């Protein structure tokens, strides 16, 4: 394989700037597929991805481009997820590329994720060239955006293709620039095998399919390979390249190529993203840099609504995990909810995606508890525990102090909304770091924020307070000591463990009060009055009451009344809310997520 005719690249962009559409056009115009075969977005083949308009798992596609110089080039387009939850996966995808196309919206210009992704690409020594998309929009200002790219990012943008991926304008130029500006790979095909795993999926027939970029060496069917970080050794069953949505087997993969291999591996855990594949007998000297074990950032309890479905939930999680190495779970029990699992996620979006897949693909009815970050509890005996479930917080007398995770956040916002966004960051206990104006109208705010202040509804709050004009990106910074308390909720004088959460001492009263109010709305009237209390330790800090149901009976119901009276009863009927019995109180399942909605007016 002539490496000089290979171009390995990715497309990076802020969400909604048109990455997937451009990918579709590139695939379409390189002639791999006829227009008829094109689905709206070829790369996003999970239903869920399409509905949410985001790319969850990175994937790759290989196409053949006949350039204007008459030569044929192999394009390997590696798609990257756009969401901050999946930052690590983005970084591994980038590491598999030699260049990147930076897509910037001609109307919106540079956004927080644009910057974050560009920096990430530059960190990986990729050659980045910009493309200005959506020039068909009435509000497009390509000249201004080109200038902004040069000013803010410092890369040449005057000859950036000005395109509309949606309308198919300017795609030819993008293709030519890929040939001209993305460097060809320069690996040594005769060196020991050294390949980067940038993704892997589980297929029930083939086992795990490893997506990799070969840096050096070759791999073919029958090769014995080793995953350097996990240590798994296996024999290769098949190698091949990526069609659009199909796997095309081939004889051999060699340095510079992007492709897949299968080796009857049963769990994606053995093929961790970022790991290096090498020859088992003639291993390379050292692994590729940058491998990290995936860390769960957000945890929550996941319980079957019907306790009898616990084994089904376990099976579903097992299967999901085959496909999603970043999902962690371990069994736990709750007094309120019975048997379930404490699950770890990359972030809130990841949590929601998993929850939806469990409900949709596995037809499970779930109760999920409020998400929590991982707190470090330093105990008086000198030990430190990672607390993922608020219920497990040791007795205050045993706690020396607690630490919570803090992130470095970058928020890009137009001038008019700087005030409200700063206010929001202050409310969320943010520590102001800096503010710089990128251009006259837009500022880049840097804050340090506790992770537990942003996992709930920070995105929503950011959007609503900036009327959609703010964008946001963050990186884990580390742990900081903090004054934290556990807020307990008592319903009808019984503590409901699944409703407890950790909160900063200063906001305990406010949160407790709102939580009680929210639960009051959620819990239907019973035959008796139900007190809802919030407590820190043994101190009650807030209380609401769900009044008892009204005594009410239709005095009259004869032949002519039935239809009308039935309608009246229909109104009174409690909707088909899914309920959970706690003591003698029935609580709607969604009440367990109430803490997420405390800031709704």
């Amino acid at each position: 394989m002539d490496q000089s005719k290979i171009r390995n690249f990715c497309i990076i962009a802020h969400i909604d700037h048109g990455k997937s559409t451009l990918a579709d056009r590139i695939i379409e115009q390189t002639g791999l597929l006829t227009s008829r075969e094109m689905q709206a977005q070829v790369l996003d083949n999970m239903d869920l991805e399409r509905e949410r308009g985001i790319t969850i798992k990175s994937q790759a596609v290989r196409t053949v481009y006949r350039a204007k110089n008459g030569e044929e080039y192999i394009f390997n387009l590696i798609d990257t997820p756009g969401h901050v939850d999946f930052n690590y996966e983005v970084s591994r995808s980038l590491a598999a590329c030699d260049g990147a196309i930076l897509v910037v919206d001609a109307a919106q210009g540079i956004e927080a994720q644009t910057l974050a992704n560009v920096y990430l690409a530059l960190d990986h020594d990729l050659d980045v060239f910009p493309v200005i998309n959506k020039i068909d929009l009435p509000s497009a200002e390509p000249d201004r955006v080109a200038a902004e790219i040069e000013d803010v990012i410092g890369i040449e943008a005057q000859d950036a293709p000005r395109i509309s991926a949606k309308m198919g304008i300017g795609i030819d130029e993008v293709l030519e620039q890929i040939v001209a500006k993305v460097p060809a790979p320069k690996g040594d095909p005769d060196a020991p095998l050294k390949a980067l795993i940038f993704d892997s999926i589980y297929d029930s027939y083939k086992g795990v399919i490893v997506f990799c970029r070969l840096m050096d060496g070759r791999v073919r069917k029958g090769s014995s390979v080793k995953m350097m970080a996990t240590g798994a050794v296996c024999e290769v069953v098949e190698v091949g390249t990526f069609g659009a949505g199909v796997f095309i087997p081939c004889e051999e993969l060699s340095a510079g190529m992007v492709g897949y291999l299968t080796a009857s591996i049963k769990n994606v855990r053995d093929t961790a993203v970022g790991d290096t594949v090498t020859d088992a007998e003639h291993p390379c000297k050292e692994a590729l840099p940058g491998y990290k074990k995936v860390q769960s950032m957000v945890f929550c309890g996941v319980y079957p609504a019907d306790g009898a479905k616990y084994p089904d939930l376990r099976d579903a999680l097992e299967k999901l995990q085959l496909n999603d190495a970043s999902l962690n779970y371990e069994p736990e029990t709750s007094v309120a909810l019975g048997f379930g699992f404490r699950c770890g996620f990359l972030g809130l979006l990841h949590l929601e995606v998993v929850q939806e897949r469990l409900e949709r693909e596995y037809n499970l009815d779930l109760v999920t508890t409020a998400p929590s970050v991982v707190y470090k509890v330093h105990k008086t005996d000198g030990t430190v525990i990672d607390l993922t479930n608020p219920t497990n917080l040791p007795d205050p007398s045993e706690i020396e102090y607690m630490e919570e995770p803090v992130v470095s956040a970058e928020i890009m916002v137009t001038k008019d909304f700087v005030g409200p966004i700063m206010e929001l960051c202050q409310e969320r206990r943010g520590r102001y770091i800096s503010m710089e104006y990128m251009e006259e109208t837009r500022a880049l705010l840097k804050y340090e924020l506790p992770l537990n202040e942003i996992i709930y509804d920070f995105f929503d709050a950011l959007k609503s307070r900036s009327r959609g004009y703010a964008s946001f990106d963050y990186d884990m910074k580390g742990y900081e000591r903090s004054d934290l308390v556990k807020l307990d909720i008592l319903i009808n004088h019984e503590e409901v463990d699944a409703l407890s959460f950790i909160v900063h001492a200063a906001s305990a009263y406010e949160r407790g009060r709102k939580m009680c109010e929210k639960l009051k709305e959620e819990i239907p009237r019973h035959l008796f009055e139900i007190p809802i209390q919030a407590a820190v330790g043994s101190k009650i800090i807030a209380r609401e009451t769900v009044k008892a149901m009204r005594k009410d009976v239709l005095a009259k119901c004869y032949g002519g009344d039935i239809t009308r009276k039935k309608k009246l009863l229909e109104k009174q009927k409690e909707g088909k809310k899914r309920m959970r019995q706690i003591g003698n109180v029935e609580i709607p399942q969604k009440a367990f997520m109430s803490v997420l909605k405390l800031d709704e007016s």
Partner: protein
Amino acid sequence: MNPSEQIGVYVHIPFCVRKCAYCDFLSFPADVKTQEDYVNALCKQIDATEEKRPVASVYIGGGTPSAIEPKWIDKILCKLHGDYRIDPDAEITIEVNPGTLGDSHFAVYKSAGINRLSIGLQSAHDDELHLLGRIHTYSDFLRTFQEARNAGFENINVDLMTALPGQDAGKLRHSLNCVTDLEPEHISAYSLILEEGTPFYAQRKDLDLPDEKKERALYYLMRDHLTAHGYTHYEISNFAKDGHESRHNCSYWTGQDYLGLGLGASSLLSNVRYRNETDLKSYLQDPCAREAEEVLGEKERMEEFMFLGLRMLRGIREQDFEHAFHKPVDSVYGKVIGKLFEQGLIRRENGRIFLTDSGIDYGNHVFSCFLL
């Protein structure tokens, strides 16, 4: 349709002297000519309605059936006897208002075959009667009751109301005493319900209405008084001496078919419920027009079986449910029944499911639980 199954016939007389302040029934004052036209239209409807099943009960309600000339009642009953198979021992009831009765009323009713009277009293206090907008006094009622007995009526219902504005235990007890002293065979005692569109509803803020607790206290007082005086509490608002339960009304609660005749009357025939025309003018032109026709599927029939059946204190018989729907009641309502039982709202004994005292208080909650 089972041809031997009995049905009930309801005849609606939509006229009254004056509309009461709480009344949301289809009724209004009308002149004699209109009344006569109406009776003729009603007879036309009877002629046009084919019904071969035996009639176990006839109920002439309103409005105020006694507000029209008794001979017209006679005419309607003659028509019914001519066209339908009315059982010789059928229960034939007419509602009467003490303020509307002339000398001949009871004699005509008696000869027309009427064997049960339902007298609207509501209260033994004239101030309450006035407030309600009734057109009679307590003494009018007393006279009517005596005349009815004298005319040989041995099955009489008296209507009473609880939860009236300003009503306290003493006033209710007095009304109850007045009525039980007369020993009617049947007493219907309704808690006042404010129906939208009535004058009471419009004035509800100014009325001294009892709160939930007081309303229930008055209900318990009424129930305890009547049961202590030998009346069986057989439906939420109905009490009877042994063997005098209203057969006609029971047919509504047990899901039997009924045929409604007259303006706006409802029928349930072979799982189809419909209402007659509700506009008088249109009814006079075409007395057979129907509106709001509704086919009751299994779901609706099960719902009604439960929530109507539970109105009766003896409740529903599980075997009847199984017979009607070919499945055990638990296969549909097992969870609901379990929950209501735990809450102490229903009991389950000897193959029957029925409301507890507390279940009556929360009747609407219980009923709504049986909606599928």
